[in-house]
């Protein structure tokens, strides 16, 4: 059953690691708030997982397109709303 993970923690927060450990192929991760700071760090994202990042939080933290890995989908709040409804379950970390 595909899940959406809403992840707002920085990469060294215990819940960030817990989220990655409980994410499976077919799931999605939507990075919000300080969660977007993990994007330029080159961490290993789980295979088969789609990564989204909230544009307002990227902008607030000075992260432009050049700082982002190419696989990231930048979304607005409207798309985030759609995402929460398009998966069977949403996990808020």
């Amino acid at each position: 059953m595909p899940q959406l993970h809403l992840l707002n923690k920085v990469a060294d927060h215990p819940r960030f690691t817990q989220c990655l450990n409980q994410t499976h192929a077919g799931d999605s991760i939507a990075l919000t708030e300080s969660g977007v700071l993990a994007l330029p760090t080159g961490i290993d994202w789980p295979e088969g997982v789609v990564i989204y990042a909230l544009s307002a939080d990227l902008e607030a933290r000075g992260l432009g397109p050049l700082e982002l890995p190419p696989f990231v989908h930048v979304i607005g709040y409207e798309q985030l709303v759609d995402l929460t409804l398009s998966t069977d379950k949403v996990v808020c970390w």
Partner: protein
Amino acid sequence: MDSPPPQSFALVITGAPYSSQAPQTALNFAEAAIRAGHKVNQVFLYGDGVHLASNFASPPSDESDWPALWRVFIESHQIPATCCVASALRRGLLDETESRRYEKTGANVTAPYAIAGLGEWLESTLNSSRTLYFNPDH
């Protein structure tokens, strides 16, 4: 991505204004949901999130007034909004009734917020398509 048919959300805010981004993120999400034709069934403030209900918050005029912005949003869309009683009392968030009960001199929780227990909240989550938690990012 096709827009899904109208759905309903129950939103839980557990992060306080000014020490977390949770109230801001939740408000942006709720506004986007309503713009898309969905409904917000219930807002529930839990843990440090109860500080959002304080009528006494008085931020500087050049900063966002999250308690006031949320109050306007809740009232304009007539969304039931609940403060968890256990979280509220121990953080000094009191309505008139609780203020009298504990013999305090002020009440900082007024309409549109109600102080209530988890039962009412549970019922609203059962009637919503999704329940989302807006937690502090620290």
